[in-house]
């Protein structure tokens, strides 16, 4: 299909002014950075079976983000701070060990979210910021200031650098922690460094699609990519590409939805992004399903 044909196909989707608005430029740039970081870190989250840690970090970001709003600073600072604190606590209680971690994490998560309920209430009443709850929980990709981009890029580069530097030890310890330890790899230290990258990735996902949905961006594209390729490097590139596609298409649809009923409000970006990721995941299972059906017949 030629570029012209693709343009003609997309033309009805693209509302006039989409590429002209500055908000959209920022959303496109931030969305791409966040999708790449989430996809890269997410592949290891899935193969290390640490989705639960990602979910816990996202939940506790709610507390950090709402506290940051109350203090009058940007929620991203709250996400990063809460992520680093939560990652350290998880490290201390040993979230990587299955036994005992569920109970401890559940109790800490409950306390954190309870605190978030209070902080969000105070945000809404004291600061009269009615959108606070929605901003924290479901993101705010169209309301970013362009001054945020360098910080987002910096945090993204930090997370990617950690994963790139530890790529080989991470891969081997995902196969077998024992084999990695036998080769002299400091498995515990490696896990802590990875948790740091995970905390940064979740903080970035939280500002775009919200704390509650951050796990979807982390795990969804990665899980889809893992169904489509058997090569680790390709899986990472593919997860990033799937994340970018979902993010950009989601932003486009959200922009369009200003003209949808109920007119003049627009639907949340997060809804579109997460729905697209979900559809992509379902579609990625189709080849396997077809193969199984043809074999069964």
């Amino acid at each position, binding site marked *: 299909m030629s570029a012209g044909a693709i343009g003609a196909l997309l033309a009805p989707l693209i509302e006039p002014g989409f590429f002209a608005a500055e908000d959209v430029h920022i959303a496109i740039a931030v969305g791409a950075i966040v999708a790449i970081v989430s996809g890269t870190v997410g592949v290891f989250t899935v193969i290390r079976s640490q989705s639960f840690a990602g979910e816990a970090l996202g939940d506790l970001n709610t507390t950090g983000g709402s506290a940051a709003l109350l203090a009058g600073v940007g929620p991203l600072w709250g996400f990063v701070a809460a992520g680093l604190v939560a990652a350290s606590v998880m490290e201390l209680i040993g979230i990587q060990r299955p036994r005992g971690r569920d109970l401890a994490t559940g109790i800490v998560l409950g306390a954190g979210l309870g605190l978030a309920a209070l902080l969000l209430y105070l945000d809404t009443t004291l600061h009269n910021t009615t959108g606070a709850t929605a901003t924290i929980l479901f993101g705010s990709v169209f309301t970013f200031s362009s001054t945020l981009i360098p910080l987002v890029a910096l945090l993204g580069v930090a997370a990617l650098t950690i994963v*790139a530097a530890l790529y*080989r030890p991470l891969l*081997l310890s995902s*196969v077998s922690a*024992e084999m990695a330890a*036998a*080769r002299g*790899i400091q498995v515990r230290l490696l896990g802590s460094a990875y948790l740091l990258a995970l905390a940064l990735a979740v903080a970035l996902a939280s500002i775009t699609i919200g704390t509650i949905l951050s796990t979807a961006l982390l795990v969804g594209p990665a899980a889809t990519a893992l169904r489509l390729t*058997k*090569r680790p490097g390709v899986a990472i590139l593919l997860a990033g590409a799937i994340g970018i596609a979902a993010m950009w298409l989601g932003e486009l649809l959200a922009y369009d939805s200003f003209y949808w009923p109920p007119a003049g409000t627009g639907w949340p970006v997060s809804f579109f992004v997460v729905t697209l990721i979900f559809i992509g995941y379902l579609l990625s299972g189709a080849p396997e399903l077809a193969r199984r059906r043809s074999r069964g017949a």
Partner: protein
Amino acid sequence: MDAKEILSVEGISVRLSGREILHEVSFAIRPGEFTGLIGSNGAGKTTLLRVILGLQSANAGRVLLDGRPRSHRNPLIGYVPQKFLLDPDMPLRARDLVGLGIDAHRFGIPRPSRARRALIDQMLEAVDALSFADTRVGLLSGGEQQRVLIAHALIARPKLLLLDEPLANLDLRAGHEVVALLARIASEQQIAVLISAHEMNALLPAMDRIVYIAGGRAASGTTAEVVRADVLSELYGSHVDVLNVHGRVLVVAGAGDDADLHGHEAALPGVEIVS
């Protein structure tokens, strides 16, 4: 001490939470030797391997590799852990896992090169795994995964290859193939192979030496020296018989004075219960 010994285990004792797991275990292995570490489940085999690997510290004794105390990361040792189930979703082909054997401890992303690919192919061929080089490791059979893990361990050119229960969960034929492969590697590449097993018969044709471990104590030597009623009786601390039935060796608790062993018959290596 013979300078040619690649591994010397000297008087190793290990206590874990007050229980003595290993008691003054000593033996030595030379290059090219195929050694079986035989003992029932819980006899201390895995602990001993972990001490040799440096993953477990000993309360007494020392381990020498090539005549020197072991260092933290020792490239002399290749290790194949006890069978684990690899997730079929793991995005790793057999050749990727073998490639990790070259440089998994290094920082950064590996750069593909013709030399790297050739080396990986050569290792896969050495373990007869070339035909499934591009298959996801999680989709391979137990015997195939075992061969890929051996190639992973061998590619770093170790002088000592440790395998923890590689024959567990393999069917008889796959087990024979793995043993024959390891014996060939040991003699062709002059690598010392130390392989733990709870059943010695599958290893008998290939074994140059045996380390027989029971109740934390070990006896070592050739099979003719070790697998004898008097040696094993002393090791177990009560009388056992060594029977040769249709070319298979059975170690059974002797009649009469086996109060100590009561209920342990099933755990004796080599025993098959025929009721």
